[in-house]
């Protein structure tokens, strides 16, 4: 981690660049949802908008976690702690995929229009 004043000064520049990327990413997400030329897939919201929106969000979140929260150069203990939390969420949230086989699942509203 940046601890000496020189290193911190260098890091400040990185923080500004990351902040800028986050702003741009947000604008891009909004354009994908609201500005027709940026609308991927079918007209209106569909799975491609969902994938693209969440991909941008994930990139933004990764930047926040790795640069602002210094996860790009942390101690092993923290990777284990936080990593196990993320793994738990991914594996448990993955169970929601089973909802596709749920009898109350309504095809009409998931046909991608």
């Amino acid at each position, binding site marked *: 981690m940046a601890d000496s004043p020189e290193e911190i000064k260098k890091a*400040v520049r990185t*923080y500004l660049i990351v902040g800028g990327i986050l702003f741009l990413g947000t604008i891009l997400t909004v354009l994908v949802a609201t500005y027709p030329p940026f609308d991927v897939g079918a*007209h209106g919201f569909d799975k491609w908008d969902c994938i693209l929106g969440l991909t941008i969000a994930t990139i933004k*979140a990764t930047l926040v976690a790795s640069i602002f929260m210094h996860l790009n150069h942390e101690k092993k203990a923290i990777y284990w*702690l936080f990593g196990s939390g993320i793994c738990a969420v991914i594996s448990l*949230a993955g169970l929601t995929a089973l909802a596709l086989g749920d009898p109350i699942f309504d095809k009409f509203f998931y046909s991608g229009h």
Partner: protein
Amino acid sequence: MEIPYIVTPRKDTGLFNSKIAIWLFLASEVMLFGGFFSAYVFLRLGADYPWPERTLPVLPGLINTFVLIGSSVTVVFAWASLKMRQWRKFQIFMGITVFCALIFMVLKAIEYNVKFHHQAVRLSDYSIMEGHLGFEMAGDKPVLDHKGNKIEENLIYVETSKLTFNTVRFHKPWVEEFLTEAEHKNSKIVLAADVTAITKEGQKAPEIVAKAGEALSIEFLNRLQKIHLAARSHNGAYRTAALRGEWVKAHAANPGKRDWQIASGVNIDVKALAPKLLDEISTVAFKVDPPTSFDFHPRDIKEADGQSTLRDGTVVDGKLEASPMVFHHVDAIDFQYLVMKAVAKGIDPEVAIQNSWLMKNSPFVQQAWKWHLAEMDKLKKELAVHHREPTHKELYRLGWKDLARMAEEEGGAKISGADQFKEEFFGPNYEARGAETFPEFSLPREQVGFAAKFSPAWNTYYAIYFTITGLHGLHVIGGALVLSYYLFFGKKMYLTNPEWLANRVEIGGLFWHFVDLVWIFVFPILYLM
């Protein structure tokens, strides 16, 4: 006492202790929010109604995103300033961070407030109307009830001749409300008939517990409740003892048999037990003399002509009066749900819409729908060039922006750019756009299928929206409080142990980044998808 490893790292982990603690906490937070996002996915996939896609105002959400990202940058700058021992800079950056949190919460409060004052109603045929109810008016002034409160135009009136209270479940404030309203309307609520009951074991004939004509009061209901509960506990004890006796006998008669094998033969002799039991008084009826009109909030009553029931079990006998739901301003008409139901039955959507109650009874809806169909024709042609089609929402929903555009095209009120900007935050501006854009509409009570404000009660979308954003908002408040503490009370620590303060700010900052990180997902998922 000196706390170990708050500045210097522990040898085994290589970290100071509070850092381990905050990351443990953040791991649990990931699981908490992850759980709610999973719930969102479940609710959306399993929704049996048209999911409200892209329904929240984007501009406030976008500003809030910028505000949080900006504050994430300033909080890390504040930490860097402390590391470089620049107290003044730290104050400026931390001050901006806390100010950003304030802006975020103000925008969120406006958003919530608009939702809580916006009414939606689903008609019996699944058409949906949205708008603003407002209060009963006499000219420019609101009409006040006998307590001086404004009367919302969504009450249900029953010309009540009889009230039957449940002696255990009656809700005291409602009984008091009946009494004050009856007094105000010069009516009396008195016991309809003598209440008789056997209150002691061995009593030959029932005694008169209360005489007909006795006035309703909380004390009176409490007295009957006491008699009722005493009788119930007495009878319960006898029944239990009798049943226990039967089991003992059954076991003796069937040695070696299991309970389930003999259970069907174990019964209480009801006739033999009857003389020992007391009379329970579970309900008590009062007549309202002369019959008087009482008003009820829709959430409290299951109304029907002749006999209605309140949530506390009180039965209200009387004629259901005309209790229309009066929209002072209608700002959306939505046929998405009706179309979904029609398609499921194999009915053509346009036929279903033309046969809906709104289309048959509201010239405004007819006019709006005609305009909408022409708009949709234009849109279909535009999209066909790119081999695309309008969405379900575009086809079957007229939102407030559509109604405003329609009114403007037909020569109605146009409002200034500043007012339009305000609408992005506060919703439709009824005053500026007037009744020609958002007209008044009276909906007969019998057409109301389900009604609610835009609250968690309206649908599962709003339930999960308020849960996630509410929880996130609490995190913003919590984080802002901690960061404010460093800002306003950190000077002393800065002078004595600046590295410790820097570590603390790093911990608070980590939490703040996490709050930002959650919002990075909340914004697209709830506002843009």
